[in-house]
């Protein structure tokens, strides 16, 4: 028994040596470069994670320290000191008695990493249809591996989204945060309800005035009177007067008019042989699938008819605008239709 095993071992070793030397001959230079690249990439990941930590700590108002950095990255004190020294030498950060802070180059870099992260989250949710709770970890890995051009290309392919799936704004290529699409209440038409989406917290004196009026995001308000001298608004049953300089820092968006029609139901409720009118696609369906379904003619008002079900009732083939398309249950869930009267099987 021993002899064949020894023989097998020697065969495998010989094979491995032959293959390895052949590969080294052909790809030697490339392997060395790849190895060097991996080391370089590892340093980049570490540097970017450090900058991101310092950036976020700064936003929260308590500056990062070498200790918090070591804790966030899981590094030994010795390696943390080396990392800080390297970044400081590169002109990315400054350390002082209060802690670590980023130079303007350093914050620009951090914002670019955040931009890549939020764009990847958008991609993973919209295009790869990954569950929301899993995208952060995957984006955390992917944010480091792209050049600025590739991130721009990703942004363009996603159609320049403004917010990530968690609702955080995505910085633009120049590092600016997208302008919030909301109007200050000084520009808001009178007697129209609006929802507060953003309160500007700079300068502090004016923000104090807004806070004293007990305004918070999410409230619905109506501007009763708007003149250059004063604003009269009613919010939650209270009527208050604000100076326009404070009103200019309160941003609102329109409140959707309450739906008068019956609530839509998902396409999955449509029985074979029944037809209904499409109300629209729900908001959680995004990316390629949404574009594809729209292109196939599933637009509001189109008449859709369930023609036949697959062998295990999934997928179902639907007739829309004269063509027959099959949708899985998981997708039909996102198509909203007018409610169907039960038992009514119309053959249209």
């Amino acid at each position: 028994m021993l002899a064949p095993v020894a023989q097998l071992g020697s065969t495998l070793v010989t094979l491995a040596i032959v293959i390895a030397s052949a590969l080294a001959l052909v790809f030697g230079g490339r392997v060395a470069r790849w190895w060097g690249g991996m080391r370089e990439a590892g340093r980049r990941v570490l540097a970017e994670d450090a900058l991101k930590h310092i950036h976020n700590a700064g936003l929260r108002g308590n500056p990062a320290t070498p200790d918090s950095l070591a804790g966030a990255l899981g590094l030994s004190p010795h390696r943390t000191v080396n990392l800080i020294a390297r970044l400081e030498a590169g002109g990315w950060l400054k350390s002082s008695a209060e802690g670590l802070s980023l130079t303007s180059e350093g914050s620009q870099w951090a914002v670019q990493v955040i931009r890549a992260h939020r764009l990847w989250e958008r991609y993973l949710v919209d295009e790869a249809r990954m569950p929301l709770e899993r995208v952060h970890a995957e984006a955390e890995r992917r944010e480091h591996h792209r050049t600025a051009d590739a991130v721009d290309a990703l942004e363009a392919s996603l159609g320049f989204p403004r917010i990530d799936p968690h609702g955080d704004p995505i910085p633009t290529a120049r590092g600016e945060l997208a302008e919030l699409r909301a109007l200050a209440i000084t520009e808001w038409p009178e007697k129209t309800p609006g929802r507060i989406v953003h309160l500007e917290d700079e300068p502090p004196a004016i923000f104090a005035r807004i806070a004293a009026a007990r305004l918070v995001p999410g409230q619905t308000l109506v501007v009763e009177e708007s003149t250059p001298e004063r604003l009269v608004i009613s919010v939650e049953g209270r009527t208050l007067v604000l100076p326009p300089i404070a009103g200019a820092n309160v941003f609102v968006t329109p409140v959707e008019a309450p739906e008068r029609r019956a609530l839509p139901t998902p396409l999955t409720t449509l029985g074979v042989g029944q037809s209904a009118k499409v109300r629209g696609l729900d908001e959680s369906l995004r990316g390629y699938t949404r574009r594809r379904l729209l292109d196939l003619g599933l637009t509001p008002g189109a008449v859709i008819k369930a023609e036949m079900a697959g062998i295990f009732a999934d997928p179902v083939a639907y007739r829309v605008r004269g063509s027959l398309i099959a949708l899985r249950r998981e997708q039909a869930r996102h198509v909203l239709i007018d409610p169907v009267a039960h038992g009514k099987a119309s053959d249209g």
Partner: protein
Amino acid sequence: MTDGRSNQAAAQLVLARADALRGNLADDFRDDLVEATYDEAQAIAERAVRQVRAPRWNLDLAVDRLVTSRIFGLPLMLVLLAAVFWLTVAGANYPSALLMKVLFAVEAWGSALFESWSIPWWITGFIWHGVFRAVAWVVGVMLPPMAIFFPCFTILEDLGYLPRVAFNMDWLFRKAGAHGKQSLTMSMGFGCNAAGIIACRVIDSPRERLIAILTNNFVPCNGRFPTLILLASIFVAARFSPGLASFAAAGTVVGVVLIGVFFTLIVSAALSRTVLKGEASAFTLELPPYRRPDILRVLYTSLIDRTVFVLARAVAVAAPAGAVIWILGNVTADGVPLARHVADFFDPLGRTIGLDGVILLAYVIAIPANEIVVPTMLMVYMGGKIMTEDVTGTSLESLLVDDNGWTMLTAVNLMLFSLLHNPCATTILTMWKETRSYRWTALGALLPLVIAFAVTFTVAEFARLFGAG
């Protein structure tokens, strides 16, 4: 020059303006665009198209209800698939034999001509018995079945039947994280895995398309079927009474195919949950109306696009393989051909997975084209100098069993290895052309190889545990 520069400046201005305006767009302006287009189209259609009273009985719909029905859908599909296979096997038999006869006659004539010009024997052997013979073998085995299989398939495609198959089979693939259309690319893989991989273009979702490309190799292609059929008839059918023998052989081949489908689904599921989970994905399947196939177009797509294309690549890779085989069979060291030395070297590894060194050697040489596995194996077993399937002086069974120690385990593991091992060079090249990624190509080539070794090793160990083999 100045004109170009001012144009460029103007373009920069336009881009900057577009960037500035982008912020004013509503988030769902794309929805609005499509809706407006459709509304406009509908308004035009209502003005210009007069709707004739809808016929009471719609043929398309009736056919659709039949081919996707719970009772008839799957049986009908299996009958059609079996019919295509039967047509291919039965129809290719005679042309294949004839083609090989003609090509080998050309080989004999060519080498005789060279000899008459007193060209050294090794040049004659290298060119005619090495390179030409390998190319002839691949063409002879491959061309006739492909020339029948692909047109049949294209007709079904043109009719509009294939999308219905994808519709019927989607439940199975949905569970594996794949697309129902993968059933079509798999069926195409029976003809040739390279053609199957090209056919993956019909899957428009990137993740599902990659899954289909990477797992296509698990359906045995035309080049591997002869090996399976040969083994099934020698080792399985021979154990049954003559009346049942052909059924036993066919059943074995079907069984091997089902094992391949099983591995396709398992590997698809594993891929979609691991390395491919971050790739973009979306399911859409259109069921176009039935049409009468356009025969000229069918012939063109199936013969030019598929058959000739695949054949040309196969010939390009078979020629160097022929050269290597000839050198291995004809160059001797210590009075023994090189092939024997290499086979002895591979032998311990081969024995560990229930095969032997000669079989592994044949598979290494046959990386360019699986058609030449059996001829190469027989050449080495018989100590011959050229590839052959003519076993002289004895029966094929006694050559394998009595002279070279084959057992049932060898046969079973060879069938499994043939089913699961790495794709041929043409297929690997096609994977690269379709994905343009070294990473996916390497995965597609190595994953099956690892699986093949793991499965055959496990089977061999179990067989030994229970005293067989």
